């Protein structure tokens, strides 16, 4: 056992911190600068344009980037690498690998996830969107929900039914869809966190045959195999975000008096802060353990599920506790005059609810742990 970083990893971490501190003020050039350094392709193999340094480096980068609030778009980047990046590397054709992986490594493209439909949430076997082969291309018709920023992402990784005559999970395939293709209509819906979450309608969208990812009708297998990444998309940014907010709240507790007494000296607040610190420690440990297991080529299913469940519950608990510590001031929105921590908690509290349902909520994953890891019988 060795839970510490190697000297190289520690050096890298310091380099990321220094870079983020120096450059985060200029979001317009930040992305191109990290792309130049190759940090968008840390875990992509060298032959496909990445640095080939593996998952631990990726988690260090994402974690520190998030801590320093650098404009690295952990979500956009995370979803791209954990979906298109991973599945393409494992199951893509050589041409697809050459086409997409270097672009991801250079940070040039984002690819969202096009799985859910109005009638297919956690139950993706109910997908109705159809892809019909016609010569050298497919014609796709259907409707998708909760697509990651389909207005600004170049691609969507779309799951569609290619064979309706086999058991539901045997007839699904994955396609790389260019979001600007004719027939793609994007209708944004406003979510509670202020983000626009598009619904996407596909009306006779013509997709070249070479955009089928992997084999036809194997989409479900790829999805299952990729679940640990699908569940833990931010790739370690979570730990940085938590650490950062924690440090902010600690600073606040040290500086702020409530009813005449410093918050940091109030027994109940101290208990709460200690619990937050402990949760962060666990999340960090699980994230790095999962990354280490990825570098060892080990099965990530159980650790992925555990990490996700712990993180979601810890995160919601964490944000809720932080809000409680801010008291009345916690209600104030971003940049309000009297807002503690510039009002960031109010936004985060609204965002936190998303974790309870997005990419399979904790209830669903607990059922997976019960049946897959513990071997309990399937529920009916």
């Amino acid at each position, binding site marked *: *056992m060795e839970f510490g970083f190697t000297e190289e990893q520690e050096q890298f971490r310091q380099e990321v911190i220094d870079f983020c501190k120096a450059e985060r003020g200029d979001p317009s050039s930040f992305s191109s600068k990290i792309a130049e350094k190759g940090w968008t392709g840390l875990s992509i193999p060298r032959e496909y344009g990445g640095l080939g340094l593996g998952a631990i480096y990726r988690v260090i980068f994402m974690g520190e980037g998030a801590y320093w609030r650098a404009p690295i778009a952990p979500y956009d980047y995370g979803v791209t690498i954990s979906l298109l990046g991973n599945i393409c590397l494992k199951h893509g054709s050589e041409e697809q690998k050459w086409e997409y992986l270097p672009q991801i490594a250079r940070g040039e493209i984002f690819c969202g996830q096009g799985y859910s439909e109005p009638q297919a949430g956690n139950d993706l076997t109910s997908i109705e969107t159809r892809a019909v082969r016609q010569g050298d291309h497919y014609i796709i018709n259907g409707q998708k929900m909760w697509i990651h920023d389909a207005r600004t992402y170049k691609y969507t990784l779309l799951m569609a039914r290619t064979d309706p005559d086999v058991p539901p999970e045997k007839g699904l395939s994955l396609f790389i869809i260019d979001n600007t293709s004719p027939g793609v209509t994007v209708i944004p819906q406003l979510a509670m966190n202020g983000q626009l979450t598009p619904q996407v309608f596909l009306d006779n969208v013509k997709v070249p045959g070479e955009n089928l990812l992997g084999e036809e009708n194997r989409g479900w297998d790829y999805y299952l195999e990729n679940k640990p990444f699908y569940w833990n998309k931010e790739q370690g940014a979570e730990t940085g975000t938590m650490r950062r907010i924690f440090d902010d709240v600690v600073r606040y507790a040290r500086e702020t008096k409530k009813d005449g007494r410093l918050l940091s000296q109030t027994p109940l607040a101290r*208990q709460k*802060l*200690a619990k937050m610190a*402990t949760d962060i420690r666990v999340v960090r440990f699980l994230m790095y353990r999962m990354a280490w*297991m990825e570098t060892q080529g080990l099965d990530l299913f159980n650790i992925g599920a555990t990490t996700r469940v*712990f993180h979601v519950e810890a995160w919601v608990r964490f944000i809720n506790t932080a809000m409680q510590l801010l008291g009345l001031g916690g209600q104030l929105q971003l940049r309000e005059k009297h807002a503690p921590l510039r009002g960031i908690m109010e936004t985060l509290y609204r965002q936190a609810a998303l974790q309870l349902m997005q990419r399979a909520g904790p209830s669903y994953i607990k059922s997976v742990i019960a049946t897959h890891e513990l*071997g309990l019988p399937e529920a009916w």
Partner: protein
Amino acid sequence: MDFSFSEEQEMLRKTARDFLEKECPKTMVREMAEDEKGYSAELWQKMAELGWMGLVFPSSYGGGGGSFLDLAVLLEEMGRALLPSPFFATVVLGGLYILEAGSTKQKEELLPRVAGGDMLLTLALSEPGVEYDAGSIAVKAVPRQGGYAINGTKLFVPYAHVADYLLCVARTREGVEPDQGLTTFIVDAKTPGSTCTPLKTIGRDHQCEVVFENVVVNKKDLLGKPDNGWVDVEKALQKATVALCIDMMGGAQQVLDMTVEYAKNRVQFGRPIGSMQALQHHCANMAVSIEASRSLAYEAAWRISEGLPCAAEVSMAKSFASECYTQTTQLGMLIQGGVGFMEDHDLPLYYRRAKATEVILGDADSHRERIARELLD
């Protein structure tokens, strides 16, 4: 980074599990709960032959030269089996403290006997109304006849009734900072003036009250620095706390395994109760919590092994483990129902043990306060 156990550690785990399954069945655990001595001398001898008592001590003191992490692996299996023995008191509370703070002479004299299984030790720290707070320690040691005379009452001293030596933390100076003025003495249990009374506890784990009445100890039996013993006590407590967390996780895992096995086989309403989502989620919650708790415990153990600062990490591990183990046994009860409540079932043994270990070496709230001290003050 490397999150795996070494081959030797995996082997140690397997040996320990096989050995304890055979040598420490639950019938024995129950028998020892009622036994006056509280452990089997025969089993103790076999453990010594396997090198367990010496595992963590350097070979120069007759030990196996293992690391704290190696010891952790062994403790996890002991916790799983609920091994009733003075191992924790002797090796962890006593032996490691002497290894850290003792003089070369003391180490040479005592550790080889501990390693050989020929000597039992324990730590006498808590008192009536005093848990783990230096400032409140009231047992006094005053200079007498070229040595010291100890007076006062120690409580919750594990296996004191069979220990050969007690490491007794006593106040030797008044009117100084709370964590100053304390000295630890290596007290021969046979010294006239000490009375040991076993306590009846929920865990039936042989903790004792020890009353010192003019117990005279020699100056050479000071452990560490006079008047400044608390620094070493803290270090000893850190190791002991992590060791206990690991032991607790072994127990919690066993409860989860038993519970899952039961849920798979128990049929109600025409189906295994493990197919009911409400119970599945309880099981999943137990599994996630144990994984988290074990992560914290092993990270703290690793830090100790590496000699890194670990005050916050130790308290994180204990605050989490204290709640995790108790909740696990409660959920185990909930799922296994009436049958799990019967004394001839294994679950009550874990249920008792969990509640005892929740408070031993500090409960969740007190450790969260320690974390807060590290982070805020």
